């Protein structure tokens, strides 16, 4: 039993952290925001890409790709501190999608775009279908490659495809976090578009599921970083901001709100690390041929990920709320940086399973079933009262 970070994780963070600290400033996030007419600015996106290339030079993009394929050959657990730092700086790229979701798939498929991707020249976006049935692609306006997991069984032969951005029809969507560069798919891809990453519906489903769980963990790490950053901004602010002749940080209400949010973040972090370690140890990667077997261990890794996502998402929501409230009115203007991180957090809380979904997932594992609606409705008040 040992929770100390592996040397590989520390080295990856050290290499990338220096770049992030120097380059990934709030101004970089602002560069990725659209102009007043809600159009992304090419110069801004170019600036972001330059930073991504510098990060790629540190091996970041290929962290989960084997050394033979040009990657670092690390495991998912090793990437957690890096992803947390990416959240902390609010890097406006689909980092989880590219590093965690897509790179292992492209490497396993021997996809020709892999070298470009590892060099930081190709960003990958991943689509998702909303409750309303729309396919949204976060960072779709910014990406070179796109994976649509819902599509994996629809081509005639079945399989998971990756598309070049130009092969798909879509429209830009205005979002709360402008740097999300969201796109909505305007129509399904044609049968002959894209290249197949995984063949056959079963294997495609397994591979997409495994990638989804990796991304859920990666998103949790990013959320912890975002939450920590919001608190760090807020702590600095309340120390210097004076009201009634004293720093607002000396008021107990401010102290207690920030203490509670800090605790939520600190308790989420080990859970995210542990889930990364579990997934790395028991990968449900589904990349092997044949139907996947959901082993007991793989189930435990998923459960650990659900625990991590709930804690990270709830911590981020609490941190955003406390940070805005403790700032007062200044939090409510876009000239101040806080909103850049809060809006990213709000966008990521529902991504890859919101807390409600992950709690429901855990409930099934715990053998908890819901009361049947029928039984409830039929009972008399006195009996219903006892349910």
């Amino acid at each position, binding site marked *: 039993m040992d929770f100390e970070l592996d040397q590989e994780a520390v080295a990856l963070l050290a290499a990338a952290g220096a770049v992030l600290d120097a380059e990934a400033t709030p101004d970089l996030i602002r560069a990725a925001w659209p102009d007043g007419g809600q159009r992304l600015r090419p110069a801004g996106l170019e600036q972001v890409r330059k930073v991504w290339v510098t990060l790629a030079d540190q091996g970041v993009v290929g962290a989960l790709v084997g050394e033979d394929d040009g990657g670092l050959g690390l495991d998912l657990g090793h990437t957690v501190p890096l992803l947390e730092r990416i959240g902390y700086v609010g890097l406006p790229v689909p980092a989880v999608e590219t590093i965690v979701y897509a790179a292992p798939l492209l490497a396993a498929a021997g996809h020709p775009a892999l070298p470009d991707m590892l060099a930081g020249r190709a960003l990958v976006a991943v689509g998702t279908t909303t*409750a309303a049935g729309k396919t949204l692609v976060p960072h779709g306006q910014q990406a070179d490659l796109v994976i649509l997991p819902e599509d994996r069984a629809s081509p005639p032969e079945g399989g998971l495809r990756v598309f070049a951005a130009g092969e798909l029809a879509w429209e830009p969507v205005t979002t709360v976090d402008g740097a999300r560069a969201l796109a909505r798919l305007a129509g399904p891809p044609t049968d002959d578009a894209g290249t197949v990453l995984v063949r056959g519906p079963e294997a495609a489903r397994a591979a997409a599921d495994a990638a989804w769980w990796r991304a859920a963990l990666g998103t949790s790490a990013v959320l912890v970083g975002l939450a920590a950053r919001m608190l760090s901004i807020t702590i600095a602010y309340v120390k210097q901001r004076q009201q*009634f002749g004293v720093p607002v940080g000396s008021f107990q209400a401010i102290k207690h709100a920030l203490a509670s949010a800090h605790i939520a973040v600190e308790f989420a972090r080990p859970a995210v690390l542990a889930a990364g370690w579990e997934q790395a140890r028991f990968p449900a990667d589904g990349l092997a041929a044949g139907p996947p077997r959901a082993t007991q261990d793989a189930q435990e890794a998923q459960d650990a990920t659900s625990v991590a996502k709930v804690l990270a998402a709830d911590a981020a929501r609490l941190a955003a709320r406390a940070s805005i409230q403790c700032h*007062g*009115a200044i939090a409510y203007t876009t000239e101040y940086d806080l909103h850049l991180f809060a809006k990213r957090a709000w966008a990521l809380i*529902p991504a890859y399973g*919101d807390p409600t979904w992950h709690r429901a997932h855990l409930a099934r594992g715990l053998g908890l079933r819901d009361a049947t609606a029928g039984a409830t409705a039929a009972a008399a008040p006195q009996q219903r009262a006892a349910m």
Partner: protein
Amino acid sequence: MDLTWSDEDEAFRAEARAWLSANVPAAPLPSGDTREGFTAHLEWETKLFDARWAVVSWPKRYGGREASLWQWLVFEEEYARAGAPQRVTQNGIFLLAPTVFEFGTPEQQERILPRMAAGLDTWAQGWSEPGAGSDLAGLRSAGVRDDERGGWRLSGQKTWTTRGAFCTHLFGLFRTTATSGPGADPAAGRHRGLTYFLVPLDAPGVTVRGFDRLDGDEGFAEVFLDDVFVPDENVLGGVGKGWQVAMATTGSERGLTLRPPGRFLATANRLVELARSVPGGASPALRDRVVQAHIDARAYQLFTLHQVSGMLRGRQPGPASSMNKLFWSEMDVRIHETALDLLGEGGEVDGAWSRGFLFSLSGPIYAGTNEIQRNVVAERLLGLPRA
């Protein structure tokens, strides 16, 4: 006790509902906190005024209907239910006007109120300054006596001025007695020596700079005053009485006037509609939060009706209005959070709920932060000792 509306009130409701149903724009107007939207909203305000719905509780000679408090609540309920546009004139009508009615001279009332009701003058609130948010007594903008011209020369900076970039006038507090420095009156204290001024924003020496709010609208402004002359007739309530006059307005802002229950009942109803529309049904955990929104909106309505009954018997709510503000502002955040959770990954798309969520976060901050309001409840209602 009788919780039915009188025939007269029901007739009033029917008239309001019929007019709103025929006149509310089918498509939502652009946000009134943008320049374009502000103009569109002023057209709507003119329409309201022409039909005598702009200021229903005001005297008929100012364009009102002399409606009772009950009828005013009924009107607000119908207004919210109809989904009618936000009132860009609200800071004048609901914050300044009650003060003018209470402290204004007859000349001031005749000069100010009819033009306000008609939307000819639009008023921005000049409370906050960069160094003074909740701590109004820390204001530094100041007025210097100009006996020659019969008035005052104002200098300083106001910030967080809602719609300040579009309004024609500003009302705010300025220090007219120095409490330190040469010629100071130390006995004046921090609360004394303030005067309530009415300032035309086209006066020489005024500079207005709009800036963006969290929700992307240019809804705030900073107002710089550099030796701006205002005549004596623009002093409201007497020189040096600004604190008392402002407190009256603040009470009004926090109390019933700005937050009639109809708005929250309408929002809660829309949340129920949203939950009903989720394909496959809302998640069980979210369902309870939707129901709680309905319960809270009802509780707020009943509390307000109870309060108005007391007011009609001469019992002023006083510091109890802090309870209204705490309840509605926190309820409003919860309702919008629940809506975003129902929308899941679609929640980050710019829309009525995401904008409403961002706006809701300002509720616990403006008009006296909820931390200050809880102090008020504890100290003035429960009698707990000041720190």
